[in-house]
């Protein structure tokens, strides 16, 4: 397990104004994660919490990557 790299993406959700209107008419555009097992993962370059650039391709040939996509920081979601 020591060699496993974990990277979490924390993603903010809706503006508060939209959250207040969720009881109004709301329709979900159901979208499935388009990636499938066996696909080549698209490369990405993202900023870490330490303001350092992290590229998926940096780990190629070195480590497995666990991406955990979160919806909101400071929440249980």
């Amino acid at each position: 397990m020591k060699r496993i790299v974990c990277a979490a993406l924390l993603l903010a959700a809706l503006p508060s104004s939209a959250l207040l209107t969720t009881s109004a008419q709301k329709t979900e555009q159901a979208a499935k994660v388009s990636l499938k097992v066996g696909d080549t993962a698209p490369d990405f370059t993202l900023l870490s919490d330490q303001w350092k650039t992290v590229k998926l391709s940096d780990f190629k040939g070195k480590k497995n990557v666990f991406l955990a996509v979160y919806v909101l920081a400071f929440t249980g979601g």
Partner: protein
Amino acid sequence: MDSPAANAAFAKQINIKFPLLSDMNKKMLTAYGILKGYDVQSETYQWAQRANIVIDKNGIVQHVEEGDSAVNPNNALSVCTDLHKKQSTK
């Protein structure tokens, strides 16, 4: 999307040792098909679905889990463990 500064505060609060990444312009989320659209009145808002993805050393996707079940990381962790065992025996 959460900024690096917000992620830094969150990382400190929960004392984690791995990077928290920000996808401020939603490029990665779009490429991976993780964004979900919600129509509220006349506006469409998009944000990420909860998802766990495991990518092996060769850049190949080995596990995809989305939605509520992805709150629990155990399935993805067990894929990681299996991958590591397979790679260690080669």
